[in-house]
């Protein structure tokens, strides 16, 4: 139970980063940390006591305890989605810096009202 709370704490640290920080790149990193927290929580959920990796290798006796493979497949997918999102938002941060000349969120305010 403690490890679940620590993973959720990592999520909220990332959320703090997105909400409070002013630099564009720090917001991106906050988003990335949130994603790490959720993926970690997902993998920890699948753990069962004394289980090994959920792949059936040569010479494994029948009836070995394995951890739940479904969260591992889901986390793989979520990591790839996170990669795509991070690449896109980082590219946008770079382009915004080129067009606006600043990385401070408080000064990028062309759209108002």
């Amino acid at each position: 139970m403690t490890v679940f709370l620590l993973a959720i704490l990592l999520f909220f640290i990332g959320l703090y980063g997105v909400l409070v920080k002013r630099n564009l790149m720090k917001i991106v990193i906050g988003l990335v940390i949130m994603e790490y927290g959720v993926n970690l929580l997902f993998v920890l959920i699948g753990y069962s006591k004394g289980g090994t990796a959920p792949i059936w290798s040569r010479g494994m006796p029948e009836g070995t305890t394995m951890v739940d493979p479904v969260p591992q497949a889901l986390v793989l997918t979520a990591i790839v989605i996170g990669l795509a999102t991070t690449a896109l938002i980082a590219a946008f941060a770079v382009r915004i810096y080129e067009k606006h000349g600043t990385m401070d969120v408080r000064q990028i305010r062309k759209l108002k009202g």
Partner: protein
Amino acid sequence: MKRGMTPIVRATARFMTPFIMVLGLYVVLHGHLTPGGGFAGGVFIGGAYVLMVLAYGADGAKSAFYKQRASLFECSGIFLFWFLAVLGLLQKGVFFLNMLQKAAPGKPHTVFSAGIIPLCNLAIGIEVAAGLFSIFITLAVLSRKEKP
């Protein structure tokens, strides 16, 4: 970034790149037997290309030719994966059916088993490698310095 790094780094990168690529290919092809699979192996192979660009400087990779090539490989990888999934639909009417498993099952725990899964891994490996290289080229090499 434009000039590359010192000759020691260049020699080491030149030496290590084939090993990294072979390791990546191994992880991709054995995705149904060991942990890893298409995505992790693709990251290895893409990383090998990125290492070469970092060591030798961006001048060689600056032309749009590399970006077009990478984009073409990326689309081909995705298209191959899509084609494998649709083959099941065309043959038996079930989307994403593992039809090679029914037609030609191999011995378990060898490379030639588990139907279309190694082929899917290969397609994903090509796609991820090309995609990562394309992202790196776009972000680090081809950025234009415009006036705000």
